[in-house]
């Protein structure tokens, strides 16, 4: 036990694989003639071998599931995001809404007065726009905040926003005739869809070009 401390230090340097060649040779030479140090070194190696021998244990089978269940609830937008990835049209729709909602809503709310597309032979009676019998209206007819009665003919589409097409019967069976599409738009949602159709293409392009747009779209999807 009179041995210099350095031999213990060498042993640890050896175990850390950081011993110099010369020191390693010196340690080896010393161990071959010193029983105490030799035993010390063997005990070190034995204890490390024992520690390393403990079988590697695996986490319980349900470990991952339990971790996943314990995670803070996924932010809603993430679930929506995953869902939107599979519904690109709705993604475009929701993006559209984020961009347009503000202005559309204000438009929807502020326009209370009856308005109608300008065609000379339309007749306005209170809040009802009439296509008189025998008259042929050229072009699309759009009525806002009022009703449309078709007794004659519209040579184009008929759209009624926040109102209805009267006659008591469905469009084509009605007295008059509309050559194009006929549509009533009453809910805000439909109103938005109506606007969307014209801009959908731009929206999709915009969406594809703009990463950050995805984030915006999510907000709206949650809102929905």
């Amino acid at each position: 036990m009179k041995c210099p401390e350095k031999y213990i230090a060498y042993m640890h340097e050896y175990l850390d694989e950081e011993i110099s060649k010369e020191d390693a040779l010196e340690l080896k030479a010393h161990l071959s003639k010193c029983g105490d140090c030799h035993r010390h070194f063997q005990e070190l190696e034995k204890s490390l071998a024992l520690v390393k021998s403990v079988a590697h244990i695996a986490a319980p089978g349900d470990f991952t599931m339990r971790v996943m269940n314990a995670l803070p609830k996924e932010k809603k937008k993430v679930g929506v995001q995953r869902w939107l990835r599979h519904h690109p049209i709705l993604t475009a729709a929701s993006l559209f809404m984020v961009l347009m909602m503000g202005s559309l809503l204000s438009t929807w709310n502020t326009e209370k007065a009856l308005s109608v597309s300008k065609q000379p032979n339309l007749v306005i009676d209170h809040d009802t726009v009439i296509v008189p019998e025998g008259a042929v209206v050229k072009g699309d007819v759009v009525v806002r905040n009022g009703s449309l009665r078709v007794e004659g003919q519209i040579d184009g589409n008929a759209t009624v926003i926040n109102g209805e097409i009267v006659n008591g019967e469905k469009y084509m069976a009605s007295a008059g005739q509309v050559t194009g599409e006929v549509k009533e738009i009453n809910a805000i949602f439909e109103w938005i869809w109506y606007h969307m159709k014209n801009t959908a293409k731009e929206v999709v392009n915009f969406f594809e070009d703009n990463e950050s747009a995805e984030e915006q779209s999510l907000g709206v999807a949650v809102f929905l």
Partner: protein
Amino acid sequence: MDAIIKKRIKQVLKGDQNAYAEIVELYKDKVYQLCYRMLGNRHEAEDMAQEAFIRAYVNIASFNIELKFSTWLYRIATNLCIDRIRKKKPDYYLDAEVSGTDGLTMYSQIPSDTRLPEDEVEKMELQDIIQREISNLPEKYRSVIVLKYIEELSLNEISEILDMPLGTVKTRIHRGREALRHQLRNV
């Protein structure tokens, strides 16, 4: 594997929670093992390992994607275990020298009734004996020994995980090995 982990982390950062399951799968055994060897108790080990993964998830935005994820994860797990050990029993003073005992530490003065009787020891599986002796190491030696000899990490990684200078890691490993030598030489 690092590429997969990076990809999954990016997905998690974008909010895709499911991508995290794969990360847990890849590291669960190592983290669980680390906690078990530190705490010596399967139930506690599972709690701590789960907590480590939950914390890593919650704080994933603060993880530097250019660094090694396992190092960061092990750091979280090791710190949790160390906190747990310190709360459980104040063994951080066990290796403080007791005045007037000439280098004798509190550790060697632990009353013998906390040790198992000889015949009980013989009935224990060798594995249990080794684990018991790992658990008997003072916490500051235990963490370096477990990281080095169970998790087989490099001294540099251990230094990062424990946020400790390399020299300190080496000193602790040396002392840890000497403590193990004392505890295990008669096994």
